[in-house]
């Protein structure tokens, strides 16, 4: 920190802060989480990180590549030129082709013709996709759990066992794929004990085949690793882990912007109040009293209900009320510092008012600012979550913790614990971290330890 010219008191405070392990590690974790959320497009996205297709390398993370690029089969009703590549399915399809190719080559043995036939049949076997750790973005609805069995069933009914097996293998339903490959699937489906309705959905719901448990079910779906929904899906099939991460991003950005704007405005006004005093102080104090008496959350809710604000408009609306609280502290601090001798000294050599305030006085008034900022951030996150919970915050489909909670507490979703636990834990952990930081900062800035009045 040599490039930052800190005076000894401030350096002392930093040292003290670092000594308080709880706060220091909380800060490290929080900053790490914020950094991670900045990298969210590389962590949770339905676009692949890297695709190697026929020798060419693609980085689709910030690019739009439609299905024609990789010659992928579009979903029913779509055509390849109109829809973006579904990378997870692409990865599974190419892996399945590799699997089938290797199987056929193993079966062919020495037969050169069969090997050549296999090579033409599986042209994508050499291609490669790397997906982010959470291969879902917060907007895509994944209805796979409900649709997959219908898809395979349609192929079985049409008699195309090979295609049915390919799809089952692509999606890692290995037990089902084996049954299809061997042909036993028909007997299993005909057995009323195993499949009361005679089709695959009945087989899954009958409970006699655990690898199919959880299929043929509408969202929300519980967490599991096969489809890589590590925290399950919400009532529209969107991945909860991804929405949690992006919700964190949005909350933190919202809180940071809001608190930054609020504290800057509040500090300036509070400092001016303290420095200038007199009529300006009295008038602005009266204005602040009026603003404080307005119940700010109600006003924000009313405005949000009428306007459905975008991110920046919501920041603006809340900033109107955010700056007030810090003015009280900056005003008192400024009054105190104004009477000190170094201020008199600066005045005496002709420093301008702005220079006195910002260069000399303010750096000594930072204690309340630094103490209260973490709590202001907490308050802002809470306010945004609360607004989203009520439905008056950012518009759908913006990912947000409040919206997740709102969905989780609907009567039909109450028994789906993953929907409730995820945002609740996230909110609780974040707030606890910020409170730890705030407490430690307060303790670090506590003047008692080094100011000795004898």
């Amino acid at each position, binding site marked *: 920190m040599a490039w930052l010219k800190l005076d000894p008191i401030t350096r002392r405070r930093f040292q003290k802060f670092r000594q308080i392990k709880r706060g220091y590690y909380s800060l490290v974790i929080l900053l790490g989480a914020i950094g991670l959320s900045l990298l969210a497009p590389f962590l949770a996205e339905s676009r692949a990180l890297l695709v190697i297709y026929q020798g060419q390398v693609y980085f689709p993370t910030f690019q739009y590549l439609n299905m024609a690029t990789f010659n992928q089969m579009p979903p029913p*009703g779509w055509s390849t030129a109109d829809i973006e590549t579904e990378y997870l399915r692409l990865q599974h399809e190419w892996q399945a082709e590799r699997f089938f190719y290797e199987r056929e080559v193993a079966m062919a043995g020495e037969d050169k013709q069969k090997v050549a036939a296999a090579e033409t049949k599986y042209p994508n076997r050499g291609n490669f996709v790397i997906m982010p750790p959470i291969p879902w973005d*917060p*907007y895509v609805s994944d209805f796979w759990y409900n*649709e997959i069995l219908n898809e395979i069933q349609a192929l079985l009914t049409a008699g195309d066992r090979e295609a049915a097996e390919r799809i089952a293998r692509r999606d890692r339903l290995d037990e089902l794929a084996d049954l299809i490959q061997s042909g036993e699937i028909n007997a299993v489906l005909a057995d009323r004990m195993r499949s009361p309705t005679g089709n695959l959905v009945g087989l899954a719901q009958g409970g006699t085949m655990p690898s199919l448990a959880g299929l043929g079910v509408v969202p929300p779906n519980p967490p599991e690793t096969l489809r890589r929904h590590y925290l399950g899906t919400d009532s529209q099939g969107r991945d909860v882990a991804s929405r949690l991460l992006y919700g964190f991003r949005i909350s933190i950005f919202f809180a940071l912007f809001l608190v930054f704007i609020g504290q800057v405005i509040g500090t300036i006004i509070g400092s001016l109040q303290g420095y200038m005093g007199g009529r300006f102080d009295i008038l602005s104090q009266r204005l602040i009293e009026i603003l404080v008496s307005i119940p700010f959350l109600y006003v924000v809710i009313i405005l949000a209900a009428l306007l459905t604000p975008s991110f920046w408009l919501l920041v603006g609306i809340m900033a109107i009320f955010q700056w007030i609280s810090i003015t009280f502290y900056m005003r008192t601090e400024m009054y105190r510092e104004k009477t000190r001798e170094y201020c008199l000294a600066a005045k005496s050599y002709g420093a301008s008012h702005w220079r006195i305030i910002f260069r000399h006085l303010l750096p000594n008034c930072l204690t309340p600012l630094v103490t209260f900022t973490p709590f202001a951030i907490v308050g802002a996150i809470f306010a945004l979550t609360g607004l989203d919970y009520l439905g008056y915050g950012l*518009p759908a489909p913006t990912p947000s913790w409040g919206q997740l909670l709102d969905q989780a507490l609907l009567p039909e979703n109450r028994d789906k614990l993953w929907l409730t636990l995820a945002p609740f834990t996230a909110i609780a952990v974040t707030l606890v971290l910020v409170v730890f930081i705030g407490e430690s900062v307060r303790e670090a800035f506590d003047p008692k330890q080094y100011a000795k009045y004898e």
Partner: protein
Amino acid sequence: MRKLITAIALASLLLPAASIAMFAADAPAPTPAPSAAKDSGPVTLPKDIVWETDNDEPLIGSEKALRGGRHNAAISEYPLTFRLVGPNSNGTFAWWNRAFTMAFTLVSMHPVTDKFIPMMATHWSVQPDQKTIYFKLDPDARWSDGEKITADDYVFTWQMMQSKDIVDPFYNSYAERYYQSVDKIDDYTLRIVGTRPSWRPLVDYAGLWPTAKHKTVLDDTWVTRTNNEAQVAVGPYVVSGTERGVSVTFKRIPNWWGDKKRYFIGMYNFDEIHLRVIDIERELDYLRLGELDMMVEGTARRWNESYTFPAVTNGWLRRARVFVDVPDGVSGLQMNLTAPIFQNKEFRIALQHLFNFDRLNRNLMYNEYFRKTSFFQGTEYANPNVKNYEFSSEKAREHLEKAGYHRPSANQGSWAKLWNVAYGLLFTRSDSDEILVNDKGEKASFTLIYAAKGLERHLTVIQQDFRRAGIDMHLQLLEGGTMFQRARERKFEMVNLAMSGGLFPEPRQYLHSEFKTAQNSNAFWGYGTPEVDEMIKTYEENLDADARRQAMWKIDQIVHDEAFYIPFWSAPYVRLVYWDYMQFPEFYLPRRTQSLTDWMVYWIDPEKKAALEEAKRTNKALPLDENIDKDFYKVRERFQ
């Protein structure tokens, strides 16, 4: 002395206040009895009157119905009053209360054939002025206390509707809007004159029911006095017992006059109806315990997930999805034709091609719903040749290209790509996603306003599909009143709203050009052409039923071609859950049923009840139904 002056001063202050209070507390002048029709002299029948009736329609109920038994049903709250009109008279109990009183109108509509059938009147005669109707009343009709039902009772109903003593502004305004006069000609002959000529006078003016004049005294205490007074009923059931907050019991009156009537055969089969106050969420629990005979299931989720317990799999508790044919109204995504982005017809058609109802239905709605096709769904005016646009991104792209939209990336330089990266890192990807642009550089982007939070997840899936094709739809949740007001003022681009419909649609308010630019009207789309105006005129004035139908079918086709309405779905059925001993006719419920109390055609079979007890005791399974969908009237074929 000072005390006296103070007293006088105070009194003089209080005097004006007291006098004002006295005037205010004066009992309001008693409502003058509404005057009878201003005709001079008594009303007589015209000389060459031609009476009509119709006793040839099929029976509504089943002749196999068995009389007897006690029916246990649920109401969601104890009635706040037993009155039929006035404050608090509308609640779940009111369905039952009205089913045995108000539902007995002069002339009724047959629930299957839609023809007019005699109910309280045996004959009627519609005069050429299309607003005067003469009725011959049924001399057999009796009140539940034995008194005869005469023309006086109908005149009294009309007077009561107009009276201020009932404290019911809805009926006051209803009487004013519809009825000009109701006159007694003799004890069993009645004349009704409506306010204006109508091409369906029996629908508009023959829906009057009798009120017991001999039992009702109208004064300003009527509302409070009759709060808990059971009605004297026209129908077969009267309130026989109540337990405050818990239940209301109806008992069948012996020798009900209607038992001999053709159109009541097979209806009202129970001896007793016991209504218990049960919260909707708990109804299934009571049903399972056997304390209810049947219930209507409200949600697709419970229908598909909650009925897996033994009573259902053993066939003791049966489920049936009975398809009914009721008018459905307009519901879906409505586009504002005055918004710049929707003025291009090709763009609108492209949106129609991008609405993937199947995906929504299969994954969010258990495959339970049916897509509407017509602007007049559920009525005879729905054009059977109009089918929804199929979901096809290729067709959508063709129309989008014709509308001038294309993907932007073809023209992007590397700076634009770098901007995409920076934007994607700082914000969520939602804004950097290949939204279509036209040649002027405008994005294919608009805002959908909606008020139904429950539909939000459907709308976000629709938004996703649009987004995949490159169309950016923003969602904006508003309060119900705000959304509706903005819709009526046409301050929106696209709105999701629903309007209920009746058997006789009223397209003028929606599609006539006189409302095309009007603020505060129901013409949300801002559509109006002389062609459609002509057809609306035909519908409203032409006496030829066929011409009317053709005109409405043409309107339906035009609405489809203009593509400003993306219809949503409807649930044209009643989800019944009932114990095996509840029996229904072969059609289950008549075609135009909206609730179970409309036409009570079901009965309890005592033999089956005993057999069910036996089966439960021995844990024997009864044969299951092959198909729980009962579509006697082929309603499903009318949807896509």
